């Protein structure tokens, strides 16, 4: 069985973008390139459900084909792993739905099938989610207001690697922060199967004033192309996800 690789950007932010292109547009672009964009918006303790500035969180994830969630920082760990897994299921289900449309006609999707058959199909989706390889590029907003949230973000990311490394499939993570010093984004941690060692890199993160979310997503998208280190994974990926559940 050939396994495919799912590619995700996980954007962690606490505010609205204020520089460059519309992040929803770059997210749509990434989605076109086969990269799912998930967004987690961190709420301050005194913020309520509908904070200003975080409206775009949902828009970015929608056009990025991913999942979004607003969360207080205490619940960040659970949310990060849940959002990542949900997005995987969503992407895989998307592939399955496409196949179903080819077999059953353009207006059919999973929900139009009777519950018993749906169960069998979901089993396949679940198997794929457990065994497929996954690449997650974490994109952390390090603008000034994020400063006191960074330790929590660090813990949540270590926790994410605990969750995902319990899967049968392989994982690769890398971390970028934005805004970078002279560029839109800055590499914090290179592609690696584990995130345990990020404790050393996180304290070095500096905070900036602007939030160029759109350009950051665009740059992040290109990082999936530049992976000399990941040649083996990419080669395996070439036949596309459709092969994965044959």
């Amino acid at each position, binding site marked *: 069985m050939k396994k495919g690789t799912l590619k995700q950007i996980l954007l962690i932010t606490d505010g609205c973008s204020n520089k460059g292109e519309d992040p929803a547009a770059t997210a749509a672009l990434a989605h076109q390139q086969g990269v799912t964009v998930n967004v987690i918006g961190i709420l301050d303790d005194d913020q309520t459900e509908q904070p200003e500035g975080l409206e775009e969180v949902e828009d970015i994830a929608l056009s990025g084909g991913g999942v979004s969630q607003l969360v207080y920082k205490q619940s960040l760990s659970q949310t990060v792993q849940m959002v990542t897994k949900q997005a995987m299921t969503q992407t895989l289900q998307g592939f399955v739905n496409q196949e179903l449309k080819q077999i059953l006609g353009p207006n059919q999707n999973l929900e139009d099938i009777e*519950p018993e058959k749906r*169960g069998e199909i979901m089993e396949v989706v679940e198997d794929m989610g457990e065994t497929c390889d996954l690449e997650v590029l974490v994109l952390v907003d390090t603008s000034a207001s994020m400063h006191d949230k960074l330790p929590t973000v660090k813990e949540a990311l270590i926790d994410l690697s605990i969750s995902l490394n319990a899967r049968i499939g392989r994982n690769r993570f890398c971390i970028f922060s934005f805004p970078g010093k002279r560029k839109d984004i800055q590499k914090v941690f290179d592609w690696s199967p584990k995130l345990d060692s990020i404790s050393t890199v996180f304290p070095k993160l500096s905070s900036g004033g602007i939030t160029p979310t759109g350009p950051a997503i665009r740059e992040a998208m290109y990082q999936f192309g530049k992976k000399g280190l990941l040649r083996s994974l990419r080669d395996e990926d070439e036949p596309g996800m459709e092969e994965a559940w044959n």
Partner: protein
Amino acid sequence: MKMNQAWKKHGIDIKPGTIISGKWHKHRYVIKKKLGQGAVGSVYLCDRNGKQVALKISDKSTSMTMEVNVLKSLKKVQGNRLGPCLLDVDDWEFAQNTKYAFYVMEYLHGETLSSFINRNGDEWIGVFMLQLLDDLERLHQAGWVFGDFKTENLIVLSSPPKVRWIDVGGTTQIGRAIKEYTEFYDRGYWGFGSRRAEPSYDLFAFVMVFLNIYYPKRFDKGSQPKSTLFKRLDDVKQLRMYRNCLKDALLGKYKTSGQMKNEITKTLQAIKSSRKSKRRAGKSVSKGTSFVEAGGIFLIALFYYLSSILLL
């Protein structure tokens, strides 16, 4: 998966009296009242042809389908002993293009583990430990791990008191990544191991269930999670007799629930025999009473445990 609920989309609110009819199987359910609300959906008490049933409904069709899959595989393996019996799976189309997925289970009526133990005494701890370890052993032998093992997912049925699992949505095949967990009960959160589904994962959560009874508000892990946890365990005098077993379970020393059950049984027996020998030695009255008490705990535990097996 517990998260801060405040910002989350509220569950589906259905007024009592509403009739839900299935798109595929055409069964009709009259909503009576809301029983609970989870991360995936809401559970309602319903009436189906005069019979009370529990109906779980959600807009998350995918997650619902996965839960139904688990209930079905448990049914294949063990009859209906492990989870609630699954009665129906369907969709409710209440408006054009608006559809909710639902499934219907038997309605298990009972009380929480904590309230039962608080009402009836700590001697029940041993009984429930043995019952739960028995069920876990059966589940593990069938190739599954419970995953989200927590107080909220357990209910005590009366006459005879028997603890049952009500939400099996987190049940995961052994060897895979745990599907659903709650931080307090998760060994990964406490730094005691991975989130790979193996029997020892459930046994860790098992200990946390009993700790949760004495720490209803739970507690934070602090900077030294392991010592925090051991300290909290040592502080509960009601669990003192099981302390060594529970620590071994936290440390992942038991590979099967059967092993742990044997150890707990030995602990309970040790109390009984120590009572006998002390009596022979003619110890003081006050000491004697406490041993009679402990022995009584064991006898009651054994009696209810056996009767729960016989009556099932």
